[in-house]
C-alpha cells in the first residue's frame, strides 16, 4: 500500500474526469478505509436508538465493528466491539439492553463505558498486565459527537469539529428535525439492507443524479403512468405510484426547477426552489392537514410555513451518508470490499405528528429504498453493471464533467450547479477524496473544474 504515493493518487483525478482505478483497485480501497473512513466524521446511529442507560446498538465505521452505547451516566459512548483479551467480538447481536458487556470466550466483563469490570483468573497474568490500564478495555473511538440527535464518530484523535466538518449541511439536518411538531425524531420502522457488487462511492454518486431516472427507471415510470387509479388501494400503493410517476419528469423539469448545491468536505444536496403550490396541494391529505395544525400549534403559522417551504431532496454527507428530510429517510453506505457494498436505510418518525404521516414514510421507504421495490432494484442493477463494466480497461477515464462550465459560487461558501443535472456534486466529492487521500496536497493545487470559481468563492469569504 505504501507503494501508492500522493502523486499517484493525484494523477487519478483530472478536471471533469476520473480514472477507473478509483473504483477497482483493491489497494486504493484499503487506503480509503485508512485515510477517509479512518479520519472523517462517520455517521454511526441516532440517539433515539439508545434512549436509556444500558441501551446499545451494533454499528461500524468502515469494516470496524463498533457499539453505540448509552452508559450508566446517560452519556453516548462509541466503543470498539472487541475484547481486550483475545480480540474477539464481544456483542454478537444487533442491539438491545444490558447492564454490562461480557465476552463469551473467557468471561471478561466491561462497564457500559468500556472500562474493564472484571476478568477471571487475574492472578495468572504476568506482572505487566494491569486491569486498571485504560487500554485494558473495550476501547473508545477517539471522538464522538452529535448534531441534533445524529451521532457521528471519528477514528482520528484530531481534526475539525463535527459542526465544522458538516458546515452548511447542518441546515439539512435542521430541515429534517424541524419538521417534527415536537422538535424531535425517532428512528423507527426497521432497516433495509441492500447490497450490490461494485464500489461504495457509486451510491452517493447516484443519489443526486437527476439525469438518470428517466432512463434507469423507465420500466416503473411507464408501469405507474399506465396504472388505473380506480383499482383498490389502501393508500400505500398511491404514494408509491405518485413517486414513480414523478421520476418520469422530463429533463426540462430538472433543468428549470431543481438545483444542486455542494459544500466543502464533499457534501451536497439536491433541492428544488421554494414552491408553495406543492405545499397547498399536499394539504388535501387530511393527515397532512392535522400535521400542519400540530406544527402551527408549536411553531406558529409563519415559522411552520418557512420550515415546510424547504424543498430539499437528497442531502449527501461525505463520505457515506445520505438523507431525505421531506420523507425522513436516511441511508448509510458501508464499504465491504473494492467491489462489494452494503447500504443500510432507516426511517424516522416525526414526534408529535399524526400516525398516518409515519405510514406514508414507510410507504415511501418501501418504494424508494426497498430491496424489492420497483425503483431501487434498477438502481442496484446499475451499480452492479458499473462494477462489471469497469472490469474492462477500455474506458480508462470516466466522465464526471456534465455541467462543467456552469458552476456558480454559493453564498454559504459552496458552489452550485447551473441546475440539477450538473455532475458538480461528484466533482465536489472527488475534491474531498483527494484532500483526504493525498493530504499533503494544498487546496489550491487540487485539479479542479472550478478554476476561477474557486477564486471567487475565496473572494466572497474575505
Amino acid at each position, binding site marked *: 500500500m505504501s507503494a501508492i504515493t500522493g502523486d499517484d493518487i493525484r494523477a487519478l483525478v483530472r478536471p471533469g474526469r476520473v480514472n477507473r482505478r478509483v473504483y477497482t483497485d483493491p489497494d486504493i480501497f484499503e487506503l480509503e478505509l485508512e485515510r477517509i473512513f479512518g479520519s472523517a466524521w462517520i455517521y454511526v446511529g441516532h440517539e433515539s436508538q439508545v434512549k436509556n442507560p444500558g441501551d446499545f446498538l451494533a454499528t461500524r465505521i468502515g469494516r470496524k465493528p463498533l457499539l453505540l452505547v448509552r452508559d450508566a451516566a446517560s452519556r453516548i459512548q462509541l466503543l470498539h466491539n472487541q475484547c481486550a483479551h483475545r480480540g474477539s467480538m464481544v456483542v454478537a447481536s444487533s442491539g438491545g439492553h444490558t447492564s454490562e458487556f461480557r465476552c463469551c470466550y473467557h468471561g471478561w466483563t466491561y462497564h457500559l463505558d468500556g472500562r474493564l469490570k472484571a476478568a477471571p483468573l487475574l492472578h495468572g497474568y504476568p506482572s505487566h498486565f494491569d486491569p486498571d490500564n485504560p487500554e485494558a478495555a473495550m476501547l473508545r473511538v477517539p471522538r464522538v459527537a452529535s448534531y441534533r440527535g445524529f451521532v457521528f464518530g471519528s477514528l482520528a484523535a484530531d481534526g475539525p469539529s463535527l459542526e465544522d466538518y458538516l458546515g452548511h449541511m447542518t441546515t439539512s439536518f435542521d430541515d429534517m428535525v424541524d419538521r417534527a411538531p415536537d422538535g424531535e425524531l425517532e428512528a*423507527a420502522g*426497521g432497516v433495509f439492507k441492500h447490497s450490490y457488487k461494485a464500489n461504495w462511492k457509486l451510491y452517493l454518486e447516484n443519489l443526486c443524479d437527476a439525469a438518470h431516472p428517466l432512463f434507469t427507471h423507465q420500466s416503473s415510470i411507464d408501469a405507474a403512468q399506465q396504472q388505473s387509479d380506480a383499482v*383498490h388501494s*389502501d393508500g400505500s400503493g398511491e404514494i408509491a405510484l405518485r413517486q414513480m410517476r414523478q421520476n418520469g419528469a422530463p429533463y426540462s423539469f430538472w433543468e428549470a426547477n431543481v438545483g444542486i448545491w455542494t459544500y466543502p468536505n464533499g457534501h451536497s444536496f439536491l433541492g428544488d426552489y421554494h414552491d408553495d403550490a406543492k405545499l397547498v396541494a399536499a394539504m388535501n391529505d387530511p393527515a397532512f392537514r392535522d400535521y400542519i395544525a400540530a406544527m402551527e400549534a408549536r411553531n406558529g403559522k409563519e415559522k411552520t410555513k418557512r420550515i415546510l417551504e424547504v424543498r430539499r431532496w437528497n442531502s449527501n454527507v461525505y463520505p457515506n451518508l445520505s438523507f431525505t428530510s421531506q420523507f425522513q429517510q436516511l441511508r448509510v453506505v458501508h464499504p465491504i470490499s473494492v467491489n462489494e457494498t452494503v447500504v443500510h436505510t432507516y426511517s424516522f418518525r416525526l414526534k408529535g405528528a399524526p400516525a398516518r404521516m409515519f405510514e406514508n414514510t*414507510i410507504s415511501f421507504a*418501501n418504494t424508494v429504498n*426497498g430491496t*424489492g421495490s420497483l425503483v431501487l432494484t434498477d438502481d442496484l*442493477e*446499475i451499480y452492479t453493471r458499473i462494477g462489471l463494466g469497469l472490469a474492462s480497461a477500455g474506458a480508462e477515464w470516466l466522465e464526471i464533467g456534465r455541467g462543467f462550465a456552469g458552476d456558480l459560487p454559493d453564498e454559504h461558501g459552496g458552489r452550485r450547479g447551473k441546475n440539477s443535472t450538473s455532475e458538480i456534486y461528484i466533482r465536489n466529492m472527488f475534491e474531498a477524496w483527494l484532500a483526504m487521500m493525498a493530504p499533503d496536497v494544498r487546496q489550491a493545487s487540487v485539479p479542479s473544474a472550478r478554476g476561477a470559481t474557486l477564486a471567487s468563492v475565496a473572494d466572497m469569504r474575505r
Partner: protein
Amino acid sequence: MTHGTSDAWARLQPIAQSGAPALAECERFLLHEARLLDEGRFDEWLGLFTPDAWYWVPAEPAQVSPRDTISLIYDDRRLLETRVRRLASPRIYSQEPRSRTSRMIGNVTLEETDAAAVTVRSKFQLLEYRRETQRIFGGTCLHRLVRGENGIRIAWKRVDLVNCDAPHEGLAVPF
C-alpha cells in the same frame, strides 16, 4: 394470520355459495401458482388475486404490520398490478437478463378454516438463476384462499423469508 386486525382492507369478502377449499384443492392451487411464477406468466399470476388483495414479504421475522415497519415488498392490489405490468416491460433492467426460477412447495397445512375461506401454510424453496449467479431463498408462505366465481382466489399472501433481514441484492421476481 393478519396484520392490523381491524382494517377494512384486511377483511375478507365472504364467499357465500360454497365452502372453504379443502387441503388437496389448496395444494393443487399452490403448485399451479408456483408454476405460473416459474414460467414467468405474471399476468395469469395476478389473475389469481382478489380485487382488493394484498401481497406482503416482511423485512423482519414475525413482523406484525406492514404499516409501521418497512417490508421487502408490500403491495396493495393497485401496486401489485403495477409490479406485474413492469415485469413485462422490455426496459426492466434488473431483469435483463431475466431470472430463471424453480420453486418447491411442501409441508402444506390448513389453518384458520372457516365457512368461506382458509389460511394455508406452506414451506417453499426457490432457486433463482441470473447472470452466472444462483441465489436460494426459502421460508414460509401463508395464503388466504377464498372461492370465487372462477375458482380459488388469493385474498392475501404473506411470504416470510428465513433471511428476510439479511442484506439482499435486488428482489425483482415475486416469491
